[in-house]
């Protein structure tokens, strides 16, 4: 016997992500799902961003890692609320993991919430968590071929931050190739070149956040 079905395989996650989105909207919290390979600079970007914006914008952070609380400890030093999720092996965050965190995180005082996803250039792009925007980091040391090799994350992101540009004199990386291939995949992608070490280019990133909070 054949049974016609036609259902979204990820429907359970989509439902939870939509509910999360409603919760965030009700609290007036703007949510950024931050994704990249391991070591591209997600936590350092968050440290920089929090230091620069926390006096004017109430910020919270959810830290996703397979294990350890190293990142949450780094964020905690900056005096903003942070919750650590350990996925115990899972390579990405999903709607339910983020929902569980909301029990420990008071959204009422917050205006901006960063969710730092598990370091991975593939899987996190597939799962919604209730975010307003996906933002990804690609560091120049990873190579300029990455948009073509891992198109989904570049397609799903609203912003691409090209990090570690202070290292460009020492490596072979063609920024124009990154920009062109990323825009083939996603013509509307905002691209900012930054160095979290020197602070270069971060102003444009902060402006993007502020503009989105204002709208």
């Amino acid at each position, binding site marked *: 016997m054949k049974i016609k*079905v036609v259902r*979204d395989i*990820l*429907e*359970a996650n989509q439902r939870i992500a939509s509910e999360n989105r409603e919760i965030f909207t009700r609290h007036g919290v703007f949510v950024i799902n931050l994704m990249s390979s391991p070591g591209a600079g997600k936590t350092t970007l968050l440290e920089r961003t929090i230091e620069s914006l926390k006096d004017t914008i109430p910020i919270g952070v959810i830290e996703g890692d397979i294990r350890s609380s190293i990142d949450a400890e780094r964020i905690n030093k900056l005096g903003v609320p942070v919750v650590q999720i350990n996925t115990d092996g899972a390579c990405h965050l999903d709607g339910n993991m983020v929902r569980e965190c909301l029990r420990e995180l008071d959204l009422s005082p917050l205006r901006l919430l960063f969710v730092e996803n598990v370091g991975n250039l593939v899987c996190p792009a597939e799962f919604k968590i209730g975010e307003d925007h996906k933002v990804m980091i690609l560091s120049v040391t990873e190579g300029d071929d990455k948009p073509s090799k891992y198109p989904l994350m570049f397609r799903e992101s609203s912003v691409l931050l090209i990090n570690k540009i202070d290292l460009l004199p020492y490596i072979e990386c063609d920024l124009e190739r990154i920009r062109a291939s990323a825009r083939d995949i996603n013509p509307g992608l905002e691209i900012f070149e930054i160095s979290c070490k020197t602070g270069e280019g971060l102003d444009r990133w902060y402006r993007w956040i502020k503009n989105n909070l204002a709208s």
Partner: protein
Amino acid sequence: MHEMSIVMGLVDIIKEEMERHGAKRLCSVRVKIGKLTAVVPEALNFCFDIITKGTPMEGAKIIMEFPPLKAYCIDCNKEFEIEEYVFRCPSCGSEKILTDGGRDLSIEELEVD
């Protein structure tokens, strides 16, 4: 390896549909996988075999369909297929295009006893 999460979603839906229709055994399941999903067919089969062991789904075949990623250009009204992940009209170069289906990840049909 997020295919395990995907297979868990798949198996939940199959179980629900089999119970609803009083099915005893799953022979095959047909799924549609959009070109913009990052799903590796081998990993999907591997995870499905592990998860369904000892259940009425054990041994069933996953029939995977990969529909082409179609697009329509708003500026010149051309219909085309997206290839090599270039989201731009091949005729006029416009970026104002509508795409259809790339993110599909759906279960279409079950064959059961």
